[in-house]
């Protein structure tokens, strides 16, 4: 029984005065409960659009998406989103940023602060509760974004290239942290990325997409044992093989498009 079900979804962007862009073309996807799914593809392949459609930020022009059996009509209480640009309120403290989602859901002040403090500790930011976002590094800012999404305890976590804006080292550290947190606190994750290694490392299932129009090329199960140690996983011959396979598929799709 899948928790997210995408059927026959097509989405066209209409920008005034320009030709319509077909961002998604007849996409079908089933995601099971507590599955970690990465959407992988080149920029412009519609992976972010697909994630946003699941989160209700975009209404697809055709097709239906159901979450927990209910059709998605706008932002809903089953999904929390971690944004690529962090989307932190710069005037608000770490604590105030993390409590925002709870506040919008009507949770009382004492309760939401208690929960937020726990989430802040969970992402390793204990002691930074009263700092402003500008006082934190990029990696720490995204930890705040992650804590804000975790604290609302939704069954689904949507992550839009969350580590894309971070440097290589910080990104690796964040991947490890995410794996650790997900291991303790399992939920369904839809993670958008254009980084092949990241896609394999994190996922139970890699959804490979291609551009123009955005289509699903292939869905690959990743069966490495959990909990995963990124360093060890990357040395496995299966990992290298999988990466090469993805690379070939991406290049094929690219050449097909270029031709």
């Amino acid at each position, binding site marked *: 029984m899948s928790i997210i079900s995408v059927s026959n979804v097509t989405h066209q962007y209409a920008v005034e005065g320009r030709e319509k862009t077909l961002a998604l073309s007849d996409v079908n996807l089933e995601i099971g409960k507590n599955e970690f799914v990465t959407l992988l593809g080149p920029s412009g392949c519609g992976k972010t659009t697909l994630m946003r459609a699941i*989160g209700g*930020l975009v209404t697809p022009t055709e097709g239906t998406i159901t979450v927990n059996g209910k059709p998605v009509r706008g*932002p809903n209480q089953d999904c929390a989103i971690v*944004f690529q640009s962090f*989307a932190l309120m*710069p*005037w608000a403290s770490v604590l105030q940023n993390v409590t925002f*989602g709870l506040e919008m*859901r009507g949770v009382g002040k004492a309760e939401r602060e208690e929960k937020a403090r726990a989430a802040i500790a969970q992402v390793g930011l204990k002691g930074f509760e009263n700092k402003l*976002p500008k006082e934190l590094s990029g990696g720490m800012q995204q930890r705040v974004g992650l804590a804000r999404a975790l604290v609302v305890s939704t069954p689904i976590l949507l992550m839009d290239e969350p580590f894309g804006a971070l440097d290589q080292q910080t990104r690796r550290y964040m991947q490890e942290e995410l794996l650790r947190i997900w291991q303790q606190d399992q939920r369904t994750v839809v993670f958008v990325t254009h980084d092949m290694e990241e896609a394999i490392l994190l996922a139970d299932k890699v959804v490979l997409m291609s551009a123009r129009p955005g289509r699903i090329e292939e869905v690959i199960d990743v069966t490495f044992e959990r909990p995963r140690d990124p360093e060890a996983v990357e040395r496995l011959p299966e990992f290298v093989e999988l990466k090469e396979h993805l690379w070939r598929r991406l290049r094929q799709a690219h050449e097909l498009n270029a031709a």
Partner: protein
Amino acid sequence: MTMSALSTAGESPAAGLVRFVRNIAVNWAGMVALALIWEIVGQLIRQPWLPPLSEVLVRMVALFTTGGLSQHLVASLASLALGFLIALAIGLAVGILMGLFNWVYTALDVYVNAMLFTPGLIFAPILFAIFGLSDATRVSVVVIYAVFIIIINTAAAVRNVDRPLIEMAASYGASRTTTVFRIVLPDAFPLIIAGLRMGVGRAVKGMVNGEMFIALIGIGGQAARYGKQFDFTSVWAISVFIMALAVVINQLVTWLEKRMTAWVD
């Protein structure tokens, strides 16, 4: 005239102190040089239109002590404050509406910009006809001078609000009203405040202009009166005072701005 903080991030207190003192020194050096040049040129050429600075300063003291300028100043500042508050209320309300609703923006944008470039004094006869020789005339000139720049800045600030933040709020279920109060307005705040600073400057201008050309009251009215009598020393004295007032107000608003927007990256 410096109000900068003692030290910026990553600077040792000693280096901060040195920089602070140096800034003051440079600021005052410029002023002292200008004052000296004025004094020397004034003493040398001995023209009625450029009395030496020392005479101007002596006259300024005289005007305040025996010339009754203090009462005029109090009346002027009261009108300035009232006019600016009215401009602030109207400017914020209209600017926010223009920023939030595209149709309000489309409907008003052309006229607001047109009014920004129109000298407020054009309306002097009309205001005079409506309010007569009263404080209301002066206040309304201040409003006309200050309100449009506040509207334009506020509208631009609200329209340029950070898109990802709006999406973030929507994704956590914030209603439109909540989003306006919790996201849009705080995010627009630094730009709005910058607009207010410009509005204050224009309000001072409006106050003096209004007094000089319409009402002949207050500090500007006094300046106009001395001008008609070719009393250049008094005109200079009032001008220097208004400039000093402008500097003080500007520093005050800048300081407030810095304090209230310390969170800006």
